[in-house]
């Protein structure tokens, strides 16, 4: 599944981003290989979301470079990166609350179906957009919920919808920022099962606090502390890494026993 011989799909080189005096990303380098599920973990405030935002272009780094699919995308705005096949889900659910679930996904499909300077025909009647939306909704288990306004979906359903929206952009690389955040036990299990399916088709970067999920899913894990990579490797190597154990002091039992 993981193709470690070829070039990385995403290459991060010496990325730096500070906020005032704090370095949220501190000379960070990282390779994501095609086909892998790469988890990024770290204590709160390690700079995980800041990193994701720089990868997708919501935030610009102070220095360093991001290469995606062999192309320097460091200064590209997020909408252009999305066109290249980079998709993200947000840690704090970020959907279009005034629209239905199907609208949310159809818009994502529309964004990747030519330009949208079409002023006359009804967008909701474009069959191929609605079909694409329905397919993505079905993937995440929301096939029956398309007509429901986002504001009326449960939190768990909204997390799934985030994923459907990202999928509808037909990404090469999916950056998931804590997809399990706020989910109950059964919902989490469903999400893990879903990610297990998705990883067969798309390269995934997974930021997650749920260690059980991370160790069940990841091919490789990178550990961030204070914006720096302190360890990177397969789950077993990370589990036994002394520095990781120290960094996770409070959580180390979670790391070692749940794995």
């Amino acid at each position, binding site marked *: 599944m993981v193709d470690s011989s070829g070039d990385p799909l995403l290459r991060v080189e010496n990325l730096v981003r500070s906020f005032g005096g704090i370095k949220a990303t501190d000379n960070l380098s990282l390779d994501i290989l095609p086909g892998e599920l790469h988890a990024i973990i770290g204590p709160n405030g390690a700079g995980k979301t800041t990193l994701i935002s720089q990868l997708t272009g919501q935030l610009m780094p102070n220095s360093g470079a991001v290469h995606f699919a062999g192309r320097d995308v460091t200064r590209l705005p997020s909408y252009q990166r999305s066109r290249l096949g980079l998709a993200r889900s947000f840690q704090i659910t*970020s959907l279009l609350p005034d629209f239905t679930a199907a609208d949310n996904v159809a818009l994502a499909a529309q964004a990747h179906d030519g330009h949208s300077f079409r002023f006359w025909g009804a967008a909701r009647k474009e069959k191929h957009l609605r079909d694409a939306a329905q397919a993505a909704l079905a993937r995440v288990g929301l096939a029956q919920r398309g007509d429901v306004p986002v504001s009326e979906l449960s939190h768990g359903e909204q997390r799934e919808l985030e994923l459907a929206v990202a999928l509808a952009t037909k990404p090469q690389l999916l950056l998931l920022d804590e997809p399990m955040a706020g989910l109950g036990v059964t919902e989490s299990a469903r999400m893990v099962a879903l990610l297990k399916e998705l990883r067969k088709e798309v390269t995934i970067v997974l930021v997650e606090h749920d260690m059980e999920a991370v160790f069940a899913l990841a091919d490789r894990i990178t550990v961030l502390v204070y914006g720096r990579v302190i360890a990177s490797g397969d789950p077993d190597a990370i589990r036994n890494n002394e520095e990781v154990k120290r960094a996770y002091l409070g959580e180390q039992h979670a790391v070692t026993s749940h794995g």
Partner: protein
Amino acid sequence: MKSHINVRNVVVALVALGLLLLPLYSAVTGNIFILTLFTRIVIFALAAASLNLIMGYGGMMSFGHAAYLGIGGYAVGILAYEGIGSGFIQWPVALAASALYALVIGALSLRTRGVYFIMITLAFAQMAYYIASGLSRYGGDDGLTIYKRSTFGGLIDLSNRVQFYYLCLFCLFGGVYLIWRIINSRFGMVVRGVRSNEQRMQAIGFHANRYRLVCFVISGTICGLAGALLANNTDFISPAGMYWTRSGELMVMVVFGGMGSLFGPVLGTIVFLLLEEVLSQFTEYWALIMGPLLLLIVLFARGGIMGVLGRFSRG
């Protein structure tokens, strides 16, 4: 399927029918005043509908929309003054000038959001106001009388009250229909999506500002048409017509009727201008009544008139 027969749609249909039959009523009763009043109302309704496109659907709180009324009007007035009376020239110039102004102002203003956007659109409109005041050749502060309404090669006579009224009504219905098509199109879905969550729209691959700008230009162009109509209606243009209070009135009309509802601005304009007309007969301090009324609507009926009607509909 949801039924299309509900309180809201019945009211809208009745109002549309009433507007269509108004000249008949005016002819039967000999009440010319009501036709004059409603010609003005219909023109302002078009302006309010255009503002609603960016304000209600696009989330762009423009506080300078009166500038387009002025630009459209001045295009007609200046050309008439220079001896070009044909509407086939005047009106396209009015639309083009409004579109160009919107393009420039939009490109600059849309770098900002929220209060700054409100302030910058206001500042540009005030600039347009002072520029118009400085046009000494065209009357400066005092404005300019238009001695002859736009001609359309005998096709339609704008000096005929009924014909002019129907032209304005045609423009209003056409404008609302156009806006309806736009908001449901791919383009409209993007603009509304950006209003709902800009970051999300960028993340799925839309260059939000490009769509906002085009929407801003469409809105300004439609309002420029209202400006051309208004100049023909009053046979007069002056900088006062683009003063910031006029922009504020347009916003009030939209909020009265219901932001982000298709026909809301039309209802809002009718109610606003009728109230102004009626109240000002009783007292010159009519704004003292209008103000608290607006307050009540904002506090208790956030969807405006259309919102209240919608509540009945759901019954």
